């Protein structure tokens, strides 16, 4: 009897696993080749539309609880007056933290306003948005903002933050949008620097320096130089948006190009408020 049970269980295991693996591979193929993009992106959009309000609700509940426990004082066995004094100190520390946070937020908004007023983007319509989630995956440098299709955000829209370009919109739902940051390995931006020199700025991973490709060895580029979007015909970004600053330049013997790295101007690790530029792009 045991012998009959074991082969049946093995067959069941094999069948189940084969079906699941084939299903996974099929879904991956459909998603990657774009053959059923209307289905795969539609499903992702629907899931995000359903899930976003739930996540916001949970975050709204957990934040005060977290602050309560963070602010809980060690009552111990001290006298009542000492207890009251401790509570007072905690309350004052919270006020100071809140004030510091508000001050930091004010500075970030001021920088965002300065970027907003740049000639390259001041005339373009923009959608202000707040970052509600950072890096939903360890393998992708992205942020999620609280504005979506309903507010006029479109796929491919550039996103600016305090200091300069932050990235571009890669997925949109009705109420949220996912922004691929400059540092993401898939990010490639046409840039210009110096005297109308064109190049490509590539992301190399979260927290890593950006790589500038196709800089000829004869090109005069120096450390500290400002890099801006080039806005060539059909470009994904309007021209002239500050993006990064050169941090290192290396000439490699025998190579046709220089090895140039840069750091983003916007603080991508600490984004709170951004603006989505409603950029139609040149045809």
């Amino acid at each position, binding site marked *: 009897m045991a012998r009959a049970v074991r082969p049946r269980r093995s067959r069941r295991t094999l069948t189940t696993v084969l079906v699941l693996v084939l299903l996974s591979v099929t879904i991956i193929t459909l998603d*990657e080749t774009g053959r059923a993009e209307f289905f795969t992106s539609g499903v992702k959009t629907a899931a995000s539309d359903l899930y976003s309000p739930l996540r916001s609700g949970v975050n709204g509940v957990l934040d005060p609880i977290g602050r309560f426990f963070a602010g809980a004082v060690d009552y111990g066995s001290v006298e009542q007056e000492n207890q009251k004094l401790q509570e007072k100190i905690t309350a004052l520390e919270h006020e100071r933290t809140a004030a510091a946070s508000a001050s930091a937020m004010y500075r970030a908004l001021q920088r965002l306003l300065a970027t907003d007023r740049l000639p390259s983007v001041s005339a373009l319509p923009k959608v202000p948005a707040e970052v509600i989630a950072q890096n939903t995956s360890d393998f*992708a440098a992205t942020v999620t903002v609280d504005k979506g299709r309903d507010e006029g955000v479109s796929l491919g829209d550039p996103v600016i933050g305090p200091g300069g370009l932050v990235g571009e919109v890669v997925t949109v739902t009705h109420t949220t949008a996912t922004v691929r940051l400059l540092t993401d390995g898939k990010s490639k931006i046409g840039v210009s620097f110096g005297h109308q020199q064109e190049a490509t700025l590539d992301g190399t991973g979260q927290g890593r320096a950006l790589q500038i490709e196709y800089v000829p060895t004869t090109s005069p580029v120096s450390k500290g130089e400002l890099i801006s979007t080039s806005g060539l015909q059909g470009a994904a970004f309007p021209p002239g948006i500050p993006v990064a600053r050169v941090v290192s330049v290396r000439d490699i013997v025998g190579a046709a190009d220089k090895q140039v790295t840069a750091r983003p101007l916007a603080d991508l690790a600490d984004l709170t408020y951004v603006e989505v530029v409603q950029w139609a792009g040149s045809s």
Partner: protein
Amino acid sequence: MTGRSAVRTLVVVALVLLAQTTIILEIRVDGASPDVMLLLPIAAGVAAGPVEGATVGFVAGIAADLLTPTPLGLSALVGTLVGLAVGAISGGVVRDLRGLPTLVALVSSAAAVMLYAVLGAVLGESQFLHVDLAGVVAVVAVANALLAGPAVRLMRWALAGDAERATAGGRR
């Protein structure tokens, strides 16, 4: 998997997904955050065997993929393979030995993260190999090892009938 255990499993997946995308994402060690969705197929494999591990891995993977910008289906594939491997290897051994679920979670989580990066690169997502893979592996593996015990108990509850059948089969 019975109907009742399927419903309980779906509830567990939904709750863990909610935790992952709210509280867990806030925890960052050198830029990497834990991935407790990966723990579900591991715990299911330990608690109930390879079929349940693979099935939970597929469901949890699809749920995670729907909310991330990475290829749809990739987490499902990795989850299926990890759940299958853990379920097949652990058999009756891990259920009887205390502490081994922690070791299994540590090793299989590390393997799963590396498998995810390699499969992603094969699919054209070459940037997966540009992240701080060692850091991500360490954070995910250690976090899952710490949570392995409660996770196995949770999946044992969710897969109640299946877990009992697996235990009985393992002890023969």
